[in-house]
């Protein structure tokens, strides 16, 4: 429902386009209504919480003149003064030099396949409240009690959000998309702080989330930590669980910008000029794709861009998004381009899509299956504080977190210390020797910003653990 005190989003779209009608050459308006709830917990107790409703209205005004087309973008929160907002966007369009990402606005004839999004435009925004978290909240007191009795400490976070974006343009496009999104994360630490473990899941509605199941998993992993084993820095055979793979692959996907790559700035740049599209990145036939219709990971089937940035253009608002294979059969297949950039580069546009799936066709098995096939190695839980060190190789540094488990002869035999790693996800794809079946995965580091991924566990024979971290 629309927040009390605010006019319906559809009325705002109409008002903006009316206000811009006589003064902007073209106009796009985005109204984003969001409803969010969350609760944090730590030290076996709930802590902070939130319950909010938000609205932002973004107006993109386009002005044509002899030199080209300029765009001005203004955004306001709440119950906006539509005329003031439109004039602010027009003022910035008038003060801006011609844009280099200009394309004709998307017209109604280009969105005929988006029937559900067109129909959604007439409906009110989605909303959420604490009742979505009722099973989590009712389960928490038991979780806290068991933790106290079990001599460990639970912390975590549950959040749910429904965001609805309404898009209208002076070219006649009217689209809307409602995105439900939630996550539950649980952390268990031994009372003496010597061991910790974590589990996190992404979900659209919490119907598929069981706090007891996560808790059970954590108890099992804490038991693995009863035997502490010290391991030095070095290269190890490592089993990366889907949650760790998600953070690495999302980093890789973020880097796949066409223009930066053509400018020579990314790991996908070809030394001496051009891109590495077509190059084999992995001897295994991995596919990395994004698809708004991916079952269980559905996301917006059209582009909604509140500003032009890199390979995203405000001129492309409403552009239909479909399945995009970034890597296919182990080969780099596509890079992101807005329409103007794609036209300049003689390729197809590829917009940002809100999910990512990595799979090795035919791969089966779980993390546990891979552990059973491991003679000597490390099983990780998740990765943390991942940052780019060298863009030329996409070398990333970061740390293992919340459980590094020593595997010997097909079984976990104890928990090791944490490590700092220095690795490139591009190089990893070239060295992976085994993958399992994909499962929905919530990245420890990036899951809150990029909720929808499906990733397999991966075996890497020589993962570079650069130094030991004393953190536990």
């Amino acid at each position, binding site marked *: 429902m629309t927040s009390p005190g605010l006019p319906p989003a559809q009325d705002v779209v109409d008002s903006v386009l009316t206000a811009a009608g006589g003064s902007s050459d073209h106009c796009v308006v985005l109204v984003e209504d969001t409803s969010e709830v969350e609760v944090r917990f730590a030290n076996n107790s709930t802590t*902070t919480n939130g319950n909010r409703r*938000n609205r932002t209205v973004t107006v993109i005004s386009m002005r044509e003149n002899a030199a080209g087309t300029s765009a001005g973008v203004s955004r306001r929160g709440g119950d906006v003064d539509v005329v003031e907002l439109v004039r602010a966007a027009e003022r910035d369009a008038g003060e801006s*030099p011609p844009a280099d990402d200009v394309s004709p606005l998307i017209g109604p004839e280009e969105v005929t396949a988006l029937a559900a999004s067109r129909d959604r435009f007439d409906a009110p925004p989605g909303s959420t409240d604490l009742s979505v978290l009722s099973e989590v909240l009712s389960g928490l*007191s038991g979780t806290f009690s068991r933790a106290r009795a079990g001599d460990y400490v639970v912390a975590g976070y549950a959040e749910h959000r429904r965001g609805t974006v309404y898009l209208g343009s002076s070219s006649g496009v009217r689209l809307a998309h409602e995105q439900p999104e939630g996550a539950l994360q649980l952390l268990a630490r031994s009372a003496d702080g010597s061991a910790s473990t974590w589990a996190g899941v992404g979900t659209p509605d919490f119907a598929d989330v069981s706090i007891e199941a996560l808790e059970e998993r954590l108890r099992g992993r804490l038991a693995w930590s009863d035997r502490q084993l010290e391991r030095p820095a070095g290269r190890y055979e490592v089993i990366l669980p889907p949650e760790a793979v998600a953070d690495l692959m999302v980093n890789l996907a973020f880097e796949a910008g066409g223009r930066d790559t053509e400018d020579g700035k990314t790991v996908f740049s070809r030394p001496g000029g051009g891109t590495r599209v077509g190059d084999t990145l992995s001897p295994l036939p991995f596919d990395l794709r994004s698809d708004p219709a991916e079952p269980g990971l559905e996301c917006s089937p059209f582009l909604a861009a509140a*500003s032009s940035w890199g390979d995203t253009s405000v001129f492309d608002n409403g552009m239909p998004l479909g399945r995009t294979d970034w890597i296919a059969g182990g080969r780099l297949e596509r890079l992101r381009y807005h329409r103007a950039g794609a036209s300049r580069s003689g390729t197809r546009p590829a917009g940002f899509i809100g999910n990512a799936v990595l799979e090795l066709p035919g791969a089966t098995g779980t993390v546990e299956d891979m552990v059973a096939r491991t003679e000597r190695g490390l099983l990780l839980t998740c990765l943390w504080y991942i940052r780019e*060190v060298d863009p030329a190789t996409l070398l990333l540094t970061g740390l293992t*977190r919340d459980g590094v488990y020593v595997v010997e002869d097909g079984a976990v035999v104890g928990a090791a210390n944490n490590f700092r790693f220095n690795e490139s996800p591009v190089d990893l794809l070239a060295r992976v020797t085994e993958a399992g079946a994909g499962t929905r995965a919530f990245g420890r580091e990036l899951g809150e910003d990029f909720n929808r991924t499906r990733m397999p566990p991966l075996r890497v024979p020589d993962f570079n653990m*650069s130094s*030991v971290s004393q953190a536990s």
Partner: protein
Amino acid sequence: MAAARDAALGEAQRLGCTSTEFRVERIHSQHVRLRDGDLEGAADDTELGVGIRVVIDGGMGFAATVAAGADEAAELVVRAVDAARTIARAGGGRVELAPEPSHGSVTWSSPYTVDPVDVPLADKVALLADWSGRLLAADQVDHVTAHVLAVTEDTYYADLAGTEATQRRVRVHPVVEALALDADNGFETMRTVAPPAGRGWEYLQGDGWDWDGELASLPGLLGDKVRAPSVEAGQYDLVVDPTNLWLTIHESIGHATELDRALGYEAAYAGTSFATFDQLGVLQYGSPVMHVTGDRTTPNGLATVGIDQEGVPGQSFDLIRDGILTGYQLDRSIAAISGLGASNGCAFADSPLHVPIQRMANVCLQPADGEGPSTEDLIAGVDHGLYIIGDKSWSIDMQRYNFQFTGQRFFRIEHGRLVGQVRDVAYQATTTDFWGAMEAVGGRSTYVLGGAFNCGKGQPGQVAPVSHGCPSVLVRGVRILNTRNESGR
């Protein structure tokens, strides 16, 4: 505003809340980005909303909205109370806030001459285009990105204790980065090391930083860097410039001395701290030359305020004295839990729609007493080492032990003299080892106030601006990695 405030605080009193903070904020941000001298994107964003936090029956609730009328404000209190009671039933411990008296009516503003969000977009684009053009004209430079983020944050705050505050915080962060392609060495970048500042647009016109000088030096520095030899991994003595050291302070001291972390309240996300509460007054954090303060009072500091979002005045306090851990950063709930008595003013929320949490003060390493050594004096004391300028990549573990940083410029030091750049450098250490090996801090003349707009913490994630002042320092025997070797190439 007054009607909404009265409606909210009146409803809170009627419902029996023991503490209520009413906050209305307007955060006006502008981001302008140029690529090779052409405008790539610009956005003008104003966030306006109301957030209300209540404590009732030992539970805490927060609710927020972008609708700003009196009716909506009163309804927010009801939602916040409902949240407090619902969450408390899930197993919350009793919430206490450290007492804070009324500070009456407070008005405060950042010092600035020109409100950066009032500067026309055309002027912003013209300045960044001029800067970009100067670099693109150099043979050594192939590409340039230039961007500026400007923020003006207006807050109205009122609480049940009787404090009422109106404050404005202004900040800008201009960044220019040049890139050079090299047939043999791939590519390298060189970025300005000018820090973000709690200043107005005058900062970009030379008030507080020598932009002309830095831009003029970049092409030559970049050209040297892209042709520089790759560093040989090993142990080096480091002279660390404040333009690099601020980030090491931020990660290894700033976050480690947040008491909410040390007590486990960030365990699920940002992490905890090796500097546990039982170590207060005991932990040898670093060498005896180490004196670190926290403050929300530094002129032009990004975390500087008149009053925080729990009604606590900005203040200054010790964190590390003579190398020993002597204090923590606190908000009112953590001050109460820890028994330390009173908050030192470190509550902040990045949006009217977010609940305030304990956030970082300006955490600063103090320079040497008296005149102290210059950076050149510190370099002169190194036989075989590196002089590191500017920040780049950063990472630290969830208890703030193990860190790795890179930088913008790395100069070899041989026999007390700089002898050219090297590349592919990262330094890696454990926090207490690094600070324990700090042999000397520079004098006041070497001191620079660095910082960032985007310190992340909390769930949902919040970003906070924060400054860190420090002098140049000399640290002995730090592990240097070759990042090309680390990638196996």
